[in-house]
Each structure stands twice: as structure tokens, then as C-alpha cells.
């Protein structure tokens, strides 16, 4: 009989990290809708082995993550499997916002806005991890189409209040979230909101 071992709200703009054991499920709930949730996962016992977005999409030969997608490490091994998804597609090619990339995208005046990379660095700090552990991430609930000519960009989301995605740990992992604080594009409908995380064992 499975039981809920963690159920909490991650405030708007905040980081979060938690160790999952093999078989644990993590449900991420988009409480108010259209909230991008940036996500990286590491092997809990060997964090140098971490999520690899490109290995993941090359293995499934599709750029979108949804039910059945296996999040893989750089050696091709499974970290997490998407076991439920109420949205249908999630991004993993668009990466995380950073103070520095914001200056390129929106202008130098955005340098001091809070950003996902700062959340990731904050969340990883207690684990002794840092900038070298930053890699291309998952963007749950974020919509990034690629058009015929290669045009790519973050457009209005497909999620809605209460929709969720659920992940199963294939081995002990460290799951790290940045509840995206971006206010310059539609990934959060220009208004970052809280999310809920539920771990079941």
C-alpha cells in the first residue's frame, strides 16, 4: 500500500530539491495553470551522472516528453519515467532562464531579475554541487514548438489549473526544481505562481 511521504507547496519563484528512492513517485501539480517548472534530476549516489536532455530525446526520437518518456542520464541509463501526464507535451530543448541569457533575450536591464539557474544553484548548494552541474533541463508545462524552418520559441502553455505530471524513480535520484520566475515571456503567463509536489512511496 503506497503512502504519501511528502506533500508541499513550492512558492512562486522558489527552488526545491528532494531525494527519491527507487519506485517513489513524484507528482508535480500546476496549481494555477501555465506555470513552467524547470527540472533537473541526478543519480543520488553519483551526481556527476545526471539528466541528459539530448540523450533522452534521441533515445525516444521525439523532442516532447509525455507519458512513457524515460528521462535518461548521459550514459543512456534511466533515471525517471513519466507515468502520468494530463498535459500531453513538455519541453526539454529550451533550457532554463538565467540572468545572463535574459540579458541577451530581453536586454541588459533584466540582468538582476531572479532566474531559474539561480534557483538551481541555490537548491544544489547544500549538496556541494554548483555551476558545473548545470545542464539542459526539463521544462514541465512549457510549450516550445519547432516549426518547419526550425523556428523555435516559448509560446502560450497548454496546461491549466490543477493539471499534473507524475514521475517514477528508476533508481535513487536527487530531483531539483526551479519554480520558474520568468516574467518576460509567456512560459508562466507573465505571472509566476505556486506549484504542489507530492511524493508517494
Amino acid at each position, binding site marked *: 500500500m503506497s503512502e504519501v511521504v511528502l506533500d508541499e507547496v513550492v512558492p512562486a519563484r522558489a527552488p526545491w530539491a528532494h531525494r527519491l528512492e527507487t519506485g517513489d513517485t513524484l507528482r508535480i501539480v500546476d496549481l494555477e495553470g501555465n506555470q513552467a517548472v524547470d527540472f533537473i534530476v541526478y543519480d543520488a549516489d553519483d551526481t556527476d551522472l545526471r539528466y541528459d536532455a539530448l540523450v533522452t530525446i534521441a533515445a525516444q526520437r521525439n523532442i516532447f516528453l509525455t507519458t512513457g518518456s524515460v528521462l535518461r542520464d548521459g550514459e543512456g541509463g534511466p533515471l525517471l519515467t513519466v507515468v502520468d501526464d494530463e498535459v500531453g507535451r513538455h519541453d526539454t530543448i529550451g533550457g532554463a532562464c538565467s540572468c545572463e*541569457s535574459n540579458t541577451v533575450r530581453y536586454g541588459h536591464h533584466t540582468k538582476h531579475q531572479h532566474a531559474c*539557474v539561480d534557483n538551481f544553484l541555490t537548491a544544489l548548494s547544500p549538496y556541494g554541487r554548483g555551476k558545473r552541474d548545470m545542464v539542459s533541463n526539463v521544462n514541465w508545462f512549457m510549450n516550445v514548438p519547432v516549426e518547419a524552418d526550425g523556428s523555435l520559441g516559448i509560446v502560450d502553455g497548454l496546461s491549466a489549473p490543477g493539471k499534473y505530471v507524475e514521475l517514477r524513480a528508476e533508481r535513487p535520484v536527487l530531483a531539483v526544481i526551479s519554480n520558474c520566475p520568468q516574467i518576460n515571456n509567456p512560459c508562466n503567463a507573465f505571472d509566476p505562481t505556486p506549484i504542489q509536489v507530492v511524493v508517494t512511496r
Partner: protein
Amino acid sequence: MAESGTDTVLGARDHARAQAGSAGAQAVTTQPTIPATGATDLPAGVDAADVVWDETLALGGYASRVLRRGTHLRLTDLTGDTNANLVLHHAARPAERLNVADTVKLQWNAYLGAGALLLSDMGRVLATILPESDASLDLLCGASTRLAVAARHGDSGNHSPTPSGRDRLLLGLAKHGLGRRDLPPSANLFRMVRVSPEGDLVLSPPGGPPGSHMTLRAELDVLVTVAVTPHPLDDRPSYAGGPVRLTAWSGDPAGPDDPARGVSPEAQRAFENTDDVLLTLFPASSATSSPGQPSRCSATASDAGDER
């Protein structure tokens, strides 16, 4: 023993010394040109005296090298059927490195090539893809993995005839004191990948005209790491691919009026960020010299920058 003459130290020495320069050694086409200025068959307009690196990698080969800002590096598919893995680090501070996600997102396009920029995770330009380039660039599929290559070819270690792209890149980084944490998602050159409206990844068929090439111009001092391994979407049962030639020559980084700066407001600001960091890099890098002067290579890549 008697046949090889290596039963004594002096005999072994003579045997060893007879190898370099032998007919067998000269027959190896996949080796560095030493000195690099001895390189021949150069791109139009390149003077052999300016060549700083010339090396041909066989399938399965790898190389890594620090290139000064302004250096031009041409990667050439000699047979028309190969795949090269590529990753770049800021040599002075290798915790800053190629970010494929930012590269496509900040330029609003997944299919980048001639005229595009390879961007770091700090909003700066590591390299410009010069306009004469005609090779395809894939920023979506990364390097092949130990598990996937072993499943397809039976083995995938560095000791095997079919090493994974990741393991070759890791060896290249290891030669500069870098490890697994330092390997970001990497780029592929020469094979074309497209995305269907449903999100499916499609690899172009193998085999094209030989000589397809990409010329990168370093806009910071960069560590460039290259491996030659089959593309991860290459389904052929054989571990297939031809050699890749790497030729680098000294030159100038983007000057104030370089067309690469003006292609978009994002490109302009990425170059502004690059110019800005050059003002404070220690030791002073090429911002303190006028465009056209070769920069000093400011540090070794072994100084990885943060906790280790």
C-alpha cells in the same frame, strides 16, 4: 626476439627509433601535421605560415585543444559520410561552456548553421560559424551513449573498436583536467536532423558530397573538443563514418563592424556581453589589444573555476 632485434635495450631503442618516419608511419593518414605550418591543401586564402593546428581524425578518434581568440578552425568531412561531436569551453574559466539550449533559444531557431553563433551559458559568444560554412549542425541529439552503442554494436568502451561519442569527448576533456561534470550536452556536425510537426526527430540519409565543412571563429579563448563517432540516430548496423580534418589558423575575432554582430538584437547583445567580460578577464585578454592583434592565451583549462 631475434627477428625484431629487441632482446637488448639498445636493440629495443633502435627498433623504437626506426618507427617514426618509416613507410608504415607515413602511410597513416589520420595524424597531426607537425609542425602545423607544414600543412598542405589549405582553404583558399590561408597561408601555411598562419596554421596553428592541422590534424585528421579517423572514425573513433578525438582531439582537444585550446585556441586563442580570433583563431579560425575548419572541420571538414573528407568523405561525405561522417559525424563529429563538438563541445566548447571558455578556456580561461571552463565552468563556462557551450549551452545548446541557450544557443537555439536565444537565436530563435533549432536549425543553425552559417552565420550563427555558438553561445555559452553566460550569454556570451564562444564562436561564430563563418558564412562560408556549408555543413549541417545538430543541436538536438547530443553524443552517443555507452548503453546505446553497446546495444547496437556489442561494445562501446574506449578500448573497443566502437567507442561512444560521450566517452571520446570525456577523454578529450580529461587531457585538460576536466571530468564528467564538465561535459555539457554537445553538438553534432555534418548529419542533418529535422523535427516533424509531431516532434519526431528525423536524421538525413548518410552520404553526401565530400568536403562539407564548417569554419568556427573563436570569439573568446576556447577549449575545443572534437570526436568522430556515428550520430546517435544512425541506425546502420555497421559503426560507419569517414575521417574528419581539423585545420586552424590564426586570425582576428569579430571586429566592431563584423556582420555577425548585426544579424539580430540577440547577437548584438551576446557580443556586447563578450566584449564586456574581455575588459576584466585576468590576465588581461584580447580586449586590451586592438582587433587583429593575437590575444594571449589567458589560462589553462585545468583551472576549472569552482569546487572540485
